[in-house]
């Protein structure tokens, strides 16, 4: 039974790059992916800014090497690209040499296609290609499709807990290895943009019309994004002889017991999740070098998260930033994408800038890092992901 959880592979696709290399380039050059919505036809097009992957589904199908007429969702396609990159990074050519699993997270699943076919589905007389997409709607379908593509058979599961989904899939993966159920597991999440989420967040009135400003006093809300991020976790045995990118040393999940959707202003769930992760890792708050915050740029999240961070770290808050102003908030994928960024922070000793920050919040004593920090050793990174309903998760990645 492996007690250490090694990260041996990373892969992602988002508005700031199709792979790890492009992403790192955008991050180090401070180049945001947030801009105009181009690929979804919605009346809100001019009212929002999004972090969109600028490839059509047809282009993505071609990229993964499937026949052009394949009935597949954008969520699956983005996930396949990111998970494949993570597996290539980990040098996994054969999934039969070790028990291999996949846990993928998503919040929209196949909704982006269902919403376009919705009126056709209501017409029971109508037949056509659109009917083939019914089975792709379910969240679990995207994971099944990815598992098939990656030849993963030993464990396949899907998690959907809003914006903490993929952090929770990483936690589940670690627990599968610790409990000797698999030797390695591909974990993370994928979410495509959809009218469903755009309309939903419009209704909640938490979308910034301009670029989001995480932790800024004058923050107006979030920008939605899309993408996928996956990491490969391996047991000591499975990782033997490989380049270990870092270890997953801590994780914690908690609930707020405050409200069905909103986070508590005192950040109780966030506090408990970070506390649990620290306890599991055996680290003290002062050991954390960088916090990759959830930092969505909404009024509620940044206050709640910031308050919880002060409760854990006191006034000695480590370097902190939110990368949401690069990628947008990718919902079910953000924990996976930010896990990859946390691994990169350790590998290259980087703290990524929080873009668009100007004025400090009155309620908080810390300011996020606004420039690329390259001069500090980054050995332990805390990555937060908080979902609606106070489903709060925290992960800690540590240098090996």
């Amino acid at each position: 039974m492996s007690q250490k959880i090694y990260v041996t592979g990373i892969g992602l696709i988002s508005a700031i790059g199709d792979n790890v290399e492009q992403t790192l380039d955008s991050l180090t050059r401070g180049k945001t992916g947030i801009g105009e919505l181009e690929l979804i036809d919605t009346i809100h097009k001019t009212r929002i800014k999004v972090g969109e992957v600028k490839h059509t589904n047809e282009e993505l199908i071609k990229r993964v090497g499937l026949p052009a007429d394949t009935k597949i969702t954008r969520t699956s396609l983005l996930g396949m690209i990111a998970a494949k990159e993570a597996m290539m990074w980990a040098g996994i050519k054969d999934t039969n040499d070790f028990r291999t699993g996949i846990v993928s997270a998503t919040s929209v699943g196949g909704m982006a296609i269902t919403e376009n076919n919705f009126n056709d589905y209501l017409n029971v007389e109508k037949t056509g290609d659109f009917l083939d997409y019914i089975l792709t709607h379910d969240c679990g379908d995207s994971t099944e499709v990815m598992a098939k593509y990656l030849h993963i058979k030993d464990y396949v599961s899907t998690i959907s807990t809003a914006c903490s989904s993929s952090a929770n899939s990483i936690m589940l993966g670690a627990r599968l290895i610790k409990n000797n159920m698999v030797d390695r597991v591909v974990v993370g999440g994928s979410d495509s943009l959809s009218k469903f989420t755009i309309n939903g967040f419009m209704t909640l009135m938490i979308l910034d019309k301009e670029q989001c400003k995480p932790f800024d006093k004058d923050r107006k809300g979030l920008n939605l994004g899309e993408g996928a991020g996956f990491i490969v976790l391996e047991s000591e045995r499975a990782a033997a002889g490989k380049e270990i990118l870092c270890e997953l040393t801590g994780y914690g999940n908690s609930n707020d017991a405050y409200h069905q959707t909103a986070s508590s202003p005192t950040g109780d769930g966030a506090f408990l999740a970070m506390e649990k992760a620290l306890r599991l890792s055996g680290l003290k708050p002062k050991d954390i070098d960088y916090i990759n915050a959830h930092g969505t740029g909404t009024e509620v999240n940044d206050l709640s998260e910031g308050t919880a961070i002060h409760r854990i770290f006191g006034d000695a808050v480590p370097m902190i930033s939110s990368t949401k102003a690069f990628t947008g908030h990718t919902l079910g994928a953000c924990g996976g994408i930010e896990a990859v960024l946390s691994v990169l922070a350790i590998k290259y000793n980087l703290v990524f800038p929080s873009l668009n920050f100007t004025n400090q919040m009155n309620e908080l004593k810390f300011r996020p890092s606004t420039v690329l920090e390259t001069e500090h050793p980054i050995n332990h990174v805390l990555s937060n992901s908080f979902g609606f309903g106070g489903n709060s998760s925290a992960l800690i990645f540590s240098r090996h």
Partner: protein
Amino acid sequence: MENTTKITAACVIENGKVYVNSKLDFAAEGSATSLDFLKAAYTHYQLNYPKFYKMDSLCKLAMVASELLMRTNRINEKYASEAIALIIANGASSLEIDTEHQVSIADEANFFPSPAVFVYTLPNILIGEIAIRNKIKGENTFFIFDTFDEDFIHSYTDSLMNNDKAKCVIAGWVDFYEDKYRAFLYTVERTNEGEAHTTTNINKLIDNKLNFERN
């Protein structure tokens, strides 16, 4: 025996009757509907939680059962909020309110979905409502079974207690569909008092035959 898991309190609600620790505590058999009965119980027990009226029937049922359980066994005064777990199951999921929501969107000419209804269209919301009301922040999981699986819930509960994931578990069943309802919730703790946490005793408490008086 010290340090073994015990059933320390129970509340059972069925057929217009409320049982606390196996004793009949309230009956309103004349209620016209299940909902009337739940409202009568709310008034009778002076639960004083106005949010009750906004809840769907499933959550109302969960609220009455959990309130009475917490009154008879004040676990939230004994344990930290993170140390109390909620492990609850049912058979009909949230179909009662799902149907109501579906009706509200079925007619294109009279399309009026309500966020206040929609928000209850998941069965685990009832766990959320219990957690919010009592500030419970421990492990929580909701299962859907054809019928109550006492072996599964028993082993899940003991596993949480034995692995130090919880010091107290609220376990049981809360089901409401088409005017039929049934709820039983019970607390499991590690203590000298109470009845042994066994599947036999779980079945006894469901039938209101577990003797809580002996301690």
